[in-house]
C-alpha cells in the first residue's frame, strides 16, 4: 500500500470503529472509550500473538464479512473481561457472571452483531460496497486456536495480514476488550479501488 492508500484505509477503519463504539455505547447505555487504535501489517505466522500469547485463554466473538469481498472480524476478551461485558449488557452488578451459559453467549453474540454490523455499515456507506456480517460465533479457547480461523484463510493467498485493531473500555467498570478487523487481500483491494473510482 502506498501512503495515500494507507491514509484511505485508516480513514475507513476510523469511521467503522467510531460507528461500532457509538452503537455499542448506546446499546449498553455507557460511553465506551477507545483506548488505542492501530493499523498493522504483520506476518500471518505472528497473528496468534495478537492477544499476547497463543496459549492465553480467551473468549472470541467471530464474524465473517461477505458481499463485495471477504474478510474477518474478531472481538477478543480475557474471560473475566467478557463476563464483565455480559454483566453490563444484561444490566447486572459487576461480578455476577462467572461462566458462559446459553444466555451469556447469546449476549456476547449480540455484542458482536452490533459492533460488526456497525463497522461494516460505515465502510459500506463510505464506499458504496455491499459488506455483510455473518451470524456471530462465540468461542472460549486458546487465543491462537481462535485466530487460526483467520490465519488459515489469509495464508492461502498472502504471507502478511493487514490488521486493524482497537482496544476499548467501559469507564464505569473495569472492563476492556480488543476489536480486530482483518481483510483478505481481495477485500482490501476492492476497498482501495473505490478511492480511485470516487
Amino acid at each position: 500500500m502506498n501512503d495515500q492508500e494507507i491514509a484511505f484505509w485508516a480513514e475507513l477503519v476510523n469511521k467503522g470503529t467510531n460507528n461500532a463504539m457509538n452503537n455499542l455505547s448506546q446499546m449498553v447505555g455507557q460511553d465506551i472509550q477507545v483506548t488505542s487504535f492501530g493499523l498493522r501489517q504483520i506476518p500471518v505466522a505472528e497473528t496468534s500473538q495478537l492477544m499476547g500469547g497463543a496459549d492465553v485463554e480467551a473468549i472470541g466473538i467471530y464474524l465473517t464479512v461477505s458481499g463485495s469481498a471477504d474478510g474477518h472480524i474478531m472481538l477478543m476478551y480475557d474471560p473475566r473481561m467478557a463476563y464483565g461485558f455480559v454483566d453490563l449488557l444484561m444490566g447486572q452488578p459487576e461480578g455476577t457472571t462467572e461462566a458462559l451459559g446459553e444466555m451469556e453467549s447469546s449476549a456476547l453474540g449480540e455484542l458482536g452483531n452490533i459492533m460488526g454490523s456497525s463497522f461494516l455499515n460505515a465502510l459500506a456507506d463510505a464506499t458504496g460496497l455491499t459488506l455483510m456480517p455473518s451470524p456471530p460465533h462465540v468461542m472460549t479457547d486458546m487465543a491462537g486456536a481462535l485466530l487460526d480461523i483467520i490465519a488459515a484463510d489469509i495464508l492461502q493467498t498472502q504471507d502478511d495480514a493487514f490488521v486493524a485493531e482497537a482496544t476499548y473500555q467501559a469507564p464505569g467498570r473495569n472492563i476492556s476488550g480488543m476489536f480486530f478487523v482483518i481483510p483478505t487481500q481481495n477485500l482490501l483491494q476492492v476497498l482501495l479501488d473505490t478511492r480511485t473510482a470516487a
Partner: protein
Amino acid sequence: MTVQSATQRTDVVLGLGQMRVTNEAETTLVCLGLGSCVAVCAYDPIAKVAGMAHVVLPASSNGAEAHPKFADAAIPIIIEQMQELGALKVRMVVKIAGGAQMVGNNSTIGVMNIGDRNVEAVTDAVRQHGLKLQAADTGGNHGRTARFLVGSGTVLVSQAGGASHEL
C-alpha cells in the same frame, strides 16, 4: 542434599507455518494454541532426532513453492532435514495433534472444514512417504498446545485450562 541438574530445558516455539529439526536433547519444540492447524512431530528414537512442523493448510496451490505451512510439503522437508542429522526413514515415527473445527462446518468463507482437511492431508502424506503414524489427538472443536521433548520423543498435548496428557 540434592544436587540440582545444571542442564536447562529450552522451549523453541514454532509460529504458523514454521518448522524445526534438531537433535538437542534439552530442547522442547512447541506449537501453542493450535486450532485448525496441525502439529506434526516426527522422531527417530535411536538417533534421537526430532522434527516438528506447524502445518496451516492441506496442500500447496499450483505453482506455490514447497513450504512447511502446507501438509503435503512439510512431510518430505522434515524427512530430508532429519536424515541430514543422521535419522533413518525406516525408524521415523510420527505423532500429530490439532486439526480442530473451531467454527463448525457451516462457515461460508474460503476454508471449509480446514481442520479435517489438514489432518487428512498430513495423514496421507505420512503414509505416502512410508512413515508410521504412531499417535494422533485431532478433531473436535477445541484448541490444543503440543510440546515435543527432543531427548525422549515424548509429545505432551494440553487444552485450554486442562492438564496435559502424553500422546
